[in-house]
């Protein structure tokens, strides 16, 4: 092997790993790597803020299933990545962050742009490395990719001091075998325990009121075919978390849609009255369970998850199965087919009950022909894109409406920050998703509060002619906080009014993007169709919507599903519908 600069070794490993796009922003400590990148056969996206770069890499990874790569310099460059890395960590997104560090002999001297990045990112990465010797560089980078994409995926950070990127070393690229051998303590468990799978099958056969509760792990494992087969074989109704939207066609009669805080009435009631809950790649997040003692209180629980630490973390489960969701489901289906499946007939009564719940309280809102309802915007986007677009969302009310009113039908279709709840995520993630899936329409549903947190990177999308659409649900409020203040703080609207805001159309135009606006319901579909025609630059649509619309239904934080707020009494005043006293 020829002698190479550390920086060139970095590029070699990226190419070996099949990376085609990197996101980032250069600075002093990572200049050598950017020099090597200058003529490397890689698409190199220059973001305008490292946080946006990290969300782009994240959106790219979520849309494609490949590892997203982000580069940043030392100190502030790296600290700006922190939110993006934590976002990826909470949602198990495979990502490798490569940060420059001050030269080895300056570490610990409070050098210019020095920060202990390995220390800062330790609790928000699956693993991280500080390279102290060029001999280790190639292996560490290979380990980083291996760790990021295997087992329960997650972000891995590699901190490389500048002198190491400059040194020259005669190296060999480590093979996958070398990498595995170098990580004796890392052995993800993929195969489920057969006796546990047998037990699970027995419970499924006996259950009268079963519900499938599917989370992001099913998406990561690529298990949508298996999920479909299981539902059709067993006729078990299915609810998904925010992270698993699209794993199963939401127009299917057995789809209960989302559960939890902003789950549907019928999903939550089904879970509450279930006698068997099959959790698949889900982690019983507090936004899902509400009051844990009243979460599916009569149900036996089967929990399939690749991460043993997720099992019995928030709730004690009856049949834990540690393994890859796809493999476990394949075996479970095989196991179920071993015996005749006439027990499926006993499900019909349960399904009828669920249908009644669906009829009684469908997902709905009060329509208007005077003022634009945010839910209406999402429905119109759904119609205009025929349900085929990739949707990303920021965090807040618009995120929940995007989850509720767009009907998803393929996995990796709805990208949003479910775990960390990072405002400003939606738009940069859309940029990354579009680069990963150029043939798909990509629409970022953003809030006015959320979008402005990464507004600077609109210029990145313009520079690289990335035609994403930003559907701005503009209510001039930090809407979700306002909703909580209305419901739980006696309508004392503290620091939530964003009435002072830029003219978003002019803002888009000044960046070189297309700016559109709709202020009346009749204009909504027109601007969406206009935006869909643009294919050489981003489009921002400013939807001026009903300012005080609430996201409903809602289970207040820490409450039981029984205490669901279903519908507003009249404008601005929510009726708390305590189902039981």
């Amino acid at each position, binding site marked *: 092997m020829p002698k190479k600069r550390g920086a060139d070794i970095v590029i070699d490993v990226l190419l070996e790993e099949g990376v085609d796009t990197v996101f980032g922003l250069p600075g002093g400590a990572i200049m050598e790597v950017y020099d090597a990148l200058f003529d490397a056969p890689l698409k190199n996206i220059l973001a305008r803020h490292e946080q946006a770069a990290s969300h782009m890499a994240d959106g790219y990874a979520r849309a494609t299933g490949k590892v997203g790569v982000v580069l940043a310099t030392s100190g502030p460059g790296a600290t700006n990545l922190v939110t993006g890395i934590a976002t990826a960590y909470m949602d198990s997104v495979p990502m490798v962050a490569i940060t420059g560090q001050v030269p080895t002999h300056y570490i610990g001297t409070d050098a210019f742009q020095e920060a202990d990045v390995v220390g800062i990112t330790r609790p928000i990465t699956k*693993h991280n490395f500080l390279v102290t010797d060029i001999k280790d560089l190639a292996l560490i980078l290979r380990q980083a990719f291996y760790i990021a994409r295997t087992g329960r995926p997650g972000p891995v950070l590699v901190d490389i001091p500048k002198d190491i990127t400059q040194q020259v070393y005669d190296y060999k690229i480590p093979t996958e075998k070398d990498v595995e051998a170098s990580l*004796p303590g*890392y052995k993800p468990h993929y195969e489920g325990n057969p006796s546990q799978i047998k037990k699970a099958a027995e419970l499924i056969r006996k259950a009268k009121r079963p519900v499938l509760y599917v989370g992001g792990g099913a998406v990561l494992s690529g298990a949508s075919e298996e999920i479909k087969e299981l539902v059709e074989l067993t006729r078990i109704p299915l609810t998904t978390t925010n992270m698993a939207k699209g794993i199963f066609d939401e127009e299917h009669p057995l789809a209960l849609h989302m559960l939890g805080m902003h789950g549907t009435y019928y999903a939550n009631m089904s879970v509450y009255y279930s006698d068997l809950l099959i959790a698949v790649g889900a982690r019983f997040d507090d936004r899902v369970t509400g009051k844990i003692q009243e979460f*599916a*209180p009569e149900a036996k629980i089967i929990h399939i998850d690749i*991460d*043993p*630490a997720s099992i019995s973390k928030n709730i004690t489960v009856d049949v834990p199965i540690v393994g890859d969701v796809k493999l476990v489901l394949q075996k479970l289906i095989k196991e179920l087919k071993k015996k005749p499946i006439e027990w499926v007939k006993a499900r019909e009564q349960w399904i009828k009950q669920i249908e009644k719940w669906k009829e009684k309280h469908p997902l709905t809102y009060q329509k208007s022909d005077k003022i634009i309802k945010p839910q209406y915007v999402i429905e119109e986007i759904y119609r205009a894109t025929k349900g085929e677009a990739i949707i990303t969302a920021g965090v807040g009310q618009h995120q929940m409406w995007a989850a509720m009113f767009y009907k998803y039908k393929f996995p990796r279709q709805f990208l949003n920050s479910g775990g960390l709840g990072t405002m400003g995520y939606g738009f940069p993630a859309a940029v990354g998703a579009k680069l990963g899936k150029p043939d798909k329409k990509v629409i970022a549903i953003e809030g006015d509060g959320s979008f402005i947190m990464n507004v600077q990177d609109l210029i990145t999308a313009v520079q690289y002619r990335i035609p994403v659409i930003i559907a701005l649900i503009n209510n001039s409020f930090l809407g979700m906080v306002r909703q909580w203040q209305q419901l739980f703080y006696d309508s004392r609207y503290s620091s939530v009014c964003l009435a002072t805001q830029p003219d978003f159309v002019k803002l888009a135009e000044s960046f070189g993007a297309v700016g559109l606006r709709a202020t009346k319901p009749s204009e909504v579909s027109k601007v969406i169709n206009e935006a869909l025609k643009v294919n050489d630059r981003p489009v921002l649509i400013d939807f001026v919507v009903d300012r005080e619309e609430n996201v409903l239904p809602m289970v207040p934080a820490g409450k039981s599903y029984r205490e669901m707020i279903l519908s507003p009494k009249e404008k601005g005043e929510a009726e708390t519908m305590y*189902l039981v006293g």
Partner: protein
Amino acid sequence: MGEEIKVLKVREEKKTEVRKHIIIVRAQHNFGVLTRITSLFAGRGYNIESLSVGKTNEPNVARITIVVNGDERIIEQIIKQLRKLIETLRVRDITNQPHIERELALIKVHAGTDSERNEIMRLVDIFRARIVDVYTDTYTIEITGDTEKIGAFIDLIRPFGLKDIARTGIVAITRESATRKLSYKEQQTD
């Protein structure tokens, strides 16, 4: 305005108690590995009672004995997280297994008069400790044993005037007879 639906009995969760746990970790001896391990405890507001690190029979493998007081359920969760760390090779909670635990303490005590010296030497004898350094008015004592024994010894010599104490923290190892019997069950839970 409400709507009557059947209220179900709430889910009962196992009650757990706070107690002492001895956790043994074998890990790759890389820099930063200790921080990764200890921060899992710190992040939950748990103070590690004692921690000792040493080399093992395998190269680049460290053995870490952690003593911590904590709620059963949370400790269980921490152990799962410890196992998840890339650099850990094996993690066990040996609290409920027959095991031997030892700690070493070096104690400086005031020993001025003859009678004080005699009394201290008698105690040293009874506890099978050793005097390892002597100065005009000071004895330095080395003692090994489990935490209770060392505690009892310190209480007894405290009245003479303690000057300094250095304790290693517990190291522990399971009894071989027990590990043989338990190995099958442990495989099931690991």
